[in-house]
């Protein structure tokens, strides 16, 4: 087995993880706000507030040249891989300067130059596509990794198991990354899955599996770094399930009546952003002042991004017909 990379996090990385989570949260909150201000093109967006650690940790563990796909709740993951918030807002607002020229929307956001093969609105459909990414990385000998990000809702889709089998059969550089927020839309995980030992499911398919506390960004970053570098080095596919929680509803209008309010409160006490802030203060890597400065910088960054995006042009009617075919 080839050696995997040392997973220890530098002080700078630890602070960057907090910063990224704060950026994700500020971004997501402004999407919700922008909807109320009438800026968004519809309300089909799915916010990842509460899951920031699963995105920031994975983002740190990926490298330039890696490719990935996400599910429909993928804003945070995209930001963690260097997406420009202005262009993301522009896409959610349906403007031509958006990542998908205003034609994809929140659920189909993509940028192949950043390795993002696309967010998918069909639960689990991104998984075989990432299988193709892994196949491609191996075929083209890029030495890079393919990561499929999806939620617990996809854990019972057949294509996950088909893909795990092929990934293991061909020893592909591919990680199946589960953001487990305990609910597939409105259905709690134990009401959807006969067996809750998902690592065991993966291992039974020949895929190396691991579980991590998705509210602890440093645990996520270390677990991701270890598994990603192991898989990227050609040792075979990996499966990482990060247990987290969605602080908002499934979509815009969902007050989550199917969730126990006491359960929500318990998870909110484990807010990943607050937890990391506290940890960094305790480690002397952050001061309250520096934190306030960061918050102000990020707030400004996101306000500027929204303002910029709001000024961008909408596509003209002829754009309906473009990009259907190339030749």
């Amino acid at each position, binding site marked *: 087995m080839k050696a995997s990379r040392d997973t220890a996090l530098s002080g700078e990385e630890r602070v960057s993880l907090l910063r990224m989570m704060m950026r994700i949260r500020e971004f997501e909150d402004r999407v919700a706000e922008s909807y109320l201000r009438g800026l968004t093109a519809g309300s089909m967006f799915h916010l990842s507030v509460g899951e920031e650690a699963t995105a920031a940790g994975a983002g740190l563990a990926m490298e330039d040249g890696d*490719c990935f*796909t996400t599910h429909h709740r993928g804003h945070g993951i995209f930001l963690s891989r260097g997406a420009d918030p202005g262009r993301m807002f522009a896409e959610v607002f349906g403007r*031509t300067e*958006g*990542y*998908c*020229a*205003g*034609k*994809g929307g929140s659920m*189909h956001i*993509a*940028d*192949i130059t950043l390795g993002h*093969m*696309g967010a*998918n609105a*069909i639960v689990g*459909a991104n*998984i*075989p*596509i*990432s*299988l*193709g*990414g*892994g*196949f*491609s*990385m191996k*075929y*083209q000998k890029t030495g890079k990794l*393919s990561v499929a990000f999806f939620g617990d809702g996809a854990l019972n889709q*057949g*294509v996950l198991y*088909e*893909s795990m*089998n*092929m990934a293991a*059969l061909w020893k592909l550089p591919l990680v199946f990354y589960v953001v487990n927020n305990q609910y597939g839309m409105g259905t709690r995980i134990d009401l959807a899955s006969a067996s809750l030992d998902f690592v065991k499911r993966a291992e039974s398919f020949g895929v190396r599996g691991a579980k991590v506390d998705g509210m602890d960004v440093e645990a996520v970053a270390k677990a991701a770094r270890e598994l990603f570098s192991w898989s990227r080095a050609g040792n075979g596919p990996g499966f990482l399930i990060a247990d987290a929680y969605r602080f908002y509803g499934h979509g815009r209008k969902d007050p989550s009546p199917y969730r126990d309010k006491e359960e929500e409160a318990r998870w909110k006490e484990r807010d990943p952003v607050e937890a990391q802030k506290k940890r960094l203060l305790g480690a002397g890597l952050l001061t309250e002042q520096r934190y306030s400065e960061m918050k102000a910088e990020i707030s400004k960054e996101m306000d500027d991004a929204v303002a910029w995006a709001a000024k961008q042009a909408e596509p003209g009617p002829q754009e309906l017909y*473009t*990009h*259907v*075919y*190339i*030749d």
Partner: protein
Amino acid sequence: MAQMMFRDALRAALALEMKRDPKVFVIGEEVGRYGGAYAVTKGLYDEFGAERLVDTPISEASVVGLGVGAALTGLRPVVELMYVDFVGLAMDQISNQMAKWRYMSGGKVKVPMVLRTQGGTGRSAGAQHSQSLETWLAHMPGLRVVMPSNPADAKGLLATSIRSDDPVVFIEHKALYAMKGDVPDGEHLVPLGKANVVRQGDGVTIVSYSRMVHVAAEAAAALAKEGIEAEVIDLRTLNPLDMETVFASVRKTHRAIVVNEAHRTAGFCSELAARITEEAFEVLVAPVVRIAAKDTPVPATLLEKLSIPNAEEIVAAARTLAGRRKA
């Protein structure tokens, strides 16, 4: 120029394209070691090896999805779906992914993938292995649909399809694999979207594609003996669709018959009939006649022949049309 079978012509195109471009590879069930369920890829495994002729488990959805992901990340996959009847197993990856990623990304990504499959009757293979499902694919904006009727076109259209940057569904016919015909040597490219006038005439226009072109030609030979000269048009591709050739013919003959092996109800013949009527109503002496498979599942064994169009039906329809004059 050489006389060869339809399946050999396909193989020749595959071999030439694989030699020309290392990014082209073939993947699917039994394509490598077995040589293809219909022997299309026979011998290619020995020539190109396991890396370029990839045998897969029976996992149609994820294999097609793998093709999408590989195409998104720079490769040019030729994915084989053993029977078009299996398309249901992979329909999400074909219609929601392969067909739509270019559009959803605002033109930022491309899916230069060919999905090769075969359909049609002729082997008494039963209802689940004998269908003509091209309409399902032709209905999907973003997909090209190619259906060669003869060996030379099989070679030329497959080469063009592989070189196209658009996703192509390439539908062969099981009853045509052993058909012999003259095939140009070396590089042979037939453009998509250019119908072929197989037989000229001014008495009636018969439009068809794939195996039914030969049934139409058989009918035309019989009609000639009765003094009715039929113009037989082979569409070659359903998307892009060359209606100009059809309209020019109908303006000359004033009578149109469309023949397909798909079912009558909502079959592609219905689309052709609608377009001809919209364009050429004033010059038609009678409604467009659809000759299609009966609206029943395809029976196995002896009844199969009764379920699909035959030359007599076309001859009868042409005679009726020949007897009609403008009111």
